[in-house]
């Protein structure tokens, strides 16, 4: 097995199972209660109105 083959199998592992694990983690987050609002939206308005 060459270095190119190793890189290819690593890429397949990241793009296949890796991506699916991340998608499942997203679904778990989605099932939790909604996040609260970020508190500093007004700060940006103040800064950019100078």
């Amino acid at each position, binding site marked *: 097995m060459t270095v190119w083959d190793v890189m290819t199998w690593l*890429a397949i592992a990241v793009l296949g199972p890796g991506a699916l694990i991340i998608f499942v*983690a997203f679904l778990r987050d989605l099932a939790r209660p909604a996040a609260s609002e*970020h508190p500093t939206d007004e700060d940006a308005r103040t800064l950019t109105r100078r």
Partner: protein
Amino acid sequence: MSWERTAIHPLDLGIVLAYLAGMVAVGYLVAGRIRRFADFFVAGRALTTPILICTLVSSYYGLDALFGDSGDAAREGVVVWFTYGRPYTLALLVTALFLARRFERTGFLTISDVLAATYGRSTQVAGAVASFLYALPILAIMGLAGLGQVMFGLPLWAGAVIGSLLSVAYVTMGGFWADALTDTVQFTIMCVSLAVALPLILDGVGGFAGIHQTVGAGFFSPVGTAPPLYTVAYALTAASVLVEPLFYQRIFAARDRRAVRNAFLWGLLIWAAYDWATTAVGMAGAALMTTGVLAADLPRDQVLLRVVALYLPVGLSGLFLGGVLATAMSTIDSYLLLAAGNLVYDIYRPLRRPDADDATLIRYARVSLVISAAVCVLIGLYFERIKEAWNFMATILTSTLLVPMGVAVLAPGRRPPLAGALASWGGLAAVAVFFLIMHVGGTPYAELETRRLTVAGVEVLREYALFFALPVSALGWVAGAILGKRA
């Protein structure tokens, strides 16, 4: 540019149509969550690590990465992964470890907010103009138009218009929430489809041993055979990562800095894997072109689709085409949203309506989404080659924003407005002049598919724009800082 049509099995077509209907449905379902402009533009700053990974990876990597990188690999080999790609990894690492922390809880919405807080309105608008031009998803539109030609035999302009309308539909309804949620599905499809296709394709060409035997050892040189300055010029475009508006939007949309830092670190891994997969497919395409299985004069940007058509069975072809569509649409929707935000929040609001309420900003942003899509379809039909357009857009962004943003990030606080104005507008003007000179005075350079001009015995390529524009921008900053202090 003309793409040859490929026959599509009804099952594959059904998979693609189901995917498109699902995307529009998501936009409709989340539209009710949009109440304030921060909901529309940064999803209420509530994104966690997994959704950030999905939206970072799928939005930043469009068809330029899929078709462009595989096409370049078909011409140049592994240099595409090593020398062109890895400078981006370095820039992304800096972004992950430094920028996420620097902008935690600053309350900014866009990169122009940072410039406004540092230099004032003139630089804010310059940043918005450069960001708008860069954000226009011309590359993805071009690829999508080609895909419409391959799949449905549509003329390029029709594929571009229909693809843009579909992408705009769900973002117009649901803003960044719709964008990020659809990105999760698009991310999964684009990654998994490539992971499934890669071993089948490599097996079909006899693995890397078969490629090596066919195309020779030169394809396996990490530094390639292009002129060194040309290679450096491309590596230098990695600096665009540091001023990438899409990344700033996601930093500002993150729930906290840990979420975005971790997302970038995971993203690094996935981007590197994706790069290698497209490089390997491109090299397989080169072997097939050498042996005559594919036409030797096949346009490089079409290599990946032709290779996939050869080796993927029905059903998997549909999954892969869905992946290609996902790759294009996740980029188009995200960048069109950015472009619309630039027009409304960064240009219209400070110049015409500083007191505009959220409802007005959201309404105008929705109209701007459609306008931005129309503009980029028109520009997209002008450029013929994907990497050519990427170099042009990345150069505009980097030369306008790198110097003023670099100071804003490294040394926060108020700076002379003239310094920001001269650095940003000077950089933008320098790029415009450079490209105009190359367009009018340059001659075609067929081997690298670019233009060149000989000045005082020195050969200048179109890709060298940053060597010219960045010093102009830096000098502009210094001059503006000196003159601004005196005033």
